[in-house]
Every structure is written in C-alpha cells, then in structure tokens.
C-alpha cells in the first residue's frame, strides 16, 4: 500500500509521530476544537483540558517547549549536546530536549536521593552512639550507689555453708555412733 510523506506530515503537525496517524478523537480535537497540535500530541483532546493546561502555564509562568520556534529548539538542543542534522523536525527536537533535560534532572534527583539516604544513615548511627553512651553512663551511675561486695563473696559463702553442713553431718554421725555404742554397752 501507499505510504504518506510522514516527515512532511509530522513537521506540519498532521500526524502524531512518523508512522503514527492521529486517531479520530485527536483529529477532531485539532480540526474541530482547534486545539494546537502540539497540545494534542501531549494527550490534550478536550477544551477543558486545554484550558486548564493554559491556566497552569499562566500560574507557573513557564513557557513549554511546544511554544518555542523550531530554530530556538534547535539551538537549545545543540547547547544540551544533542547531535543534530538540519532535517530534524520540531517534534523530534522536543522529544530530544525533554529527554536530555529529563536525564539531567533524573541524575540530579538520584544524587540528591543518595545523599539524603547517606545523611539519614549517618544521623541514625550518631543517635545510636549517643544512646549507647547514655546507657553506659547511667549504668555506671547506678553501680556507684550499690554497697561493695568482696569478690567471690557468694562463692565463699556457699563453700562455707557446705562445710557447715558437712560438719553437721559428721556431728550427727558421731552422735548416732555414740548412741549405738551406748546401747551395746547396756545390753
């Protein structure tokens, strides 16, 4: 089948992209609602959406890329380091510039996120160290108030008790033996 002149159509805003024709809804947005094709390329197909987009622009005061002339976009892209030929279309320039700016923005955001993560980790560590130091200090203070005990006191005490118990057993055995011997004598 035939192939239309996509490059011409794209440059004139008469297709979405090379090889992508407008849908019926998009064609009606351009030809009947008279919404500029650059906005339709961004998915704006109703007058309400177009109106709110314009209001948003007025609020931020930022001029969107689609409002620039092709030549201005060409210079902008060159400054961003995009390798170009004079045949490039406005639509492609917008994609390239958005892409380049997007990548730069993304890299900056990533760096910021990494730094933030490092900062959070460092803060947490500092908090942990402070908490530990506080606990040690508190423990030291509590120990200061307690009466001092001789080292191994408990052990010594147990050993002594054992000895006492042992002594008692001997004493008892002695008494039993004595009683037994007395009994034998009585017989």
């Amino acid at each position, binding site marked *: *089948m035939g*192939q*239309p*002149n*996509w490059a011409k159509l794209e440059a004139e805003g*008469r297709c979405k992209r090379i090889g992508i*024709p407008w849908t*019926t809804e998009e064609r009606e947005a*351009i030809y009947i609602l008279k919404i500029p094709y650059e906005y339709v390329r961004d998915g704006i197909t109703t007058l309400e959406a177009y109106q709110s987009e314009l209001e948003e622009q007025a609020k931020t005061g930022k001029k969107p890329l689609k409002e620039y002339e092709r030549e201005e976009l060409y210079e902008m892209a060159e400054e961003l380091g995009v390798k170009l030929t004079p045949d490039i279309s406005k639509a492609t320039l917008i994609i390239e510039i958005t892409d380049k700016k997007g990548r730069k923005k993304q890299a900056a955001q990533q760096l910021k996120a990494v730094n933030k993560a490092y900062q959070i980790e460092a803060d947490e560590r500092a908090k942990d160290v402070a908490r530990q130091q506080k606990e040690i200090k508190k423990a030291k203070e509590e120990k200061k108030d307690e009466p001092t005990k001789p080292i191994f006191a408990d052990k010594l005490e147990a050993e002594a008790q054992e000895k006492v118990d042992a002594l008692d057993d001997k004493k008892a055995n002695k008494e039993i033996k004595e009683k037994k011997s007395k009994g034998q004598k009585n017989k």
Partner: protein
Amino acid sequence: MIRKTDFPTLTTDVQSIFNEATRSKIAGMEGLKIFDVKETEREVDKHLILHSIGGVEEVADGQDYPRATGAEGDNISYTQAQYGVNVPVTVKMRLFDLYDEITSVVTTITEEAWDMVDQSLADVLLNGYSTTYTDVYGTTTSGAGPDAASLFASTHDFGGASADTFTNIISDGTNDNPTLSRAAIVNTINVGLKFQDANGKTKPIHYDTLVFGPDLADLATRITTSDQISNSANWDPNMFVKSRVKNLVLWERLAQTGQGTSTTAFWFMYDSTKVKESLKIKFAKRPSLDAPEEIHSNKDWDYVLNYFYSRGLGFPAYIQGSNGTES
C-alpha cells in the same frame, strides 16, 4: 507421455490456459474497473496531489499571460510488492498425459491469483476506516492516505493547502454511516454537489455510482431505479435519484474482508469520472505464467505465476463510504 521434447508445446498450451482463465476473470473483476489501473517500471511511485491549478485572468491586448498558480497538497508513495506461486506439472501428469489435471491446476491457480488481486482491492474499501489492517495475503498493510487519515474519515484535510476539512463518510442528514437508504443517497449526492475545494470554491463532485455487496443488491436497485418513491404519502416521483445514480455496481467481494470479517452492510458512492484519483493500483508486472528455466531433480516442471503491484490511496474526496453501523 509428455516428453522433454514436448516442453515447448506444453508451455504454449499452459500459457493459453492461463490466458483464457485470466480473460474470463478480468471480465468479472469490479476492482479493476473502479481503481486507476496503471503500469509502472519504478519500484516506488510518487503521487502528488494538486489542488485547483488556476490563475486564469482577463488579459488585455499585448499583456503577458499570467503563470498558472496551484496549491500543492500531499504526496504519497506506492511501493511494489511481489506475489507468486509455483504451478507444478508433475512427472505423473506428464507420464500419463493428464491434460485435464494440468488444465485444472493452471486454471485454478490463475483464478486464485486474480481473486486475490480483486479481494485486495475490495479490502481497501472494506478496511477504509482503519489506518492499518491485515490484507488478503495476511500482510499488515497501511490504510493511511496522503493526509495520514484512513480512506474514510470525517476530517480529511487539503494537505496544508487550506485549513478546511471535509468528510467522506456518508450521512443521511442525522447519522453518519447509515444503512443503505434513499435519504442517505440523496444526502450524499447533495454533499457532492456542494463540495468546496482548498480555495473555498465550489467544485461539484457527482456521486453517480452506487457500490454494494450481494445483501444490499435488491434494495439498492429498488431505491435507485423505481419511478416513484417507495412508501411516500402520494408516491412522489423518484426522478432525482434515478437520474443522478447512473451506475449500480454489485461487487460480490464486499460481503466480507479478505480475513473473513463480515461487511455485508457496507456501501459506497463515487464519482465515476474522478474516482481513479482516489483509488490506485500500479502493476510493475501483471500476473503471468513463466516457463521453468531448469528441471528439478524430482523431474516436475514448475511453472511460476507471479506479479508485482501496489495499491494506494489518492485524494479521497471522490468516494464516500458507509459501514452501515449508524455511528
């Protein structure tokens, strides 16, 4: 037995069978009557649409004649595609002199090739609401015209020559894509008569041909050939439609697409003098049957039926279509 020495004679016979089958097929092919059929030697043909070449002025005696002015519209390229098939004359056919079988094979394949060509043209109309579709050969095909819209669209433009748009979707005055009716035919004729070109000047298009599939044949004939308007209060005369619609084209292939989708409600109207500007077919090589250049190891003689052609859209204003969905 058909021997090797009989090869030239058999080839002549086979080609005459092919020619006979081709002749009878072409006679019944509506597509080739509607489309602009041209031969080409280029692989890619470029077609430029011009809107209203003009500039005729009153010229005073001795004054230079003005140069013609024209508004250049869109352009579109048609790329050739190749289609083909082997037509085998097997050893068995030769050994046992199976002329009937040879005739049958050649005739069937030849008819099949022309059927495919005709259906591929019908598919251009039946898939006229899409910018891409699968054709009768199973190939994904672009249905985009020079303005990147499908053949039938409500907002065709003039290729930058004007900010105006036009529709070539049939309406009955209330609904787009109406079922076949007298009101829709009258409205379409009327739209054509009031058509304005890229410069806003009236350039009437006379939609004088009604195209339909088998299911609409009876209704189409009654609407356009009756002397009186059916079911009208006092049986008004039907002269307007009867005189304006000069040709009725029953195209059997409009019943379904090449992929088998039912399209029985589709109908179309076109200007028979201009439709060839809207629909084009270019043959770099028409279907032909070529004799084999070598004998294969299986001793079959493989004749080759092949052809190169492209289909394409031009300026779409000269044909109007309805898919009968009333939407």
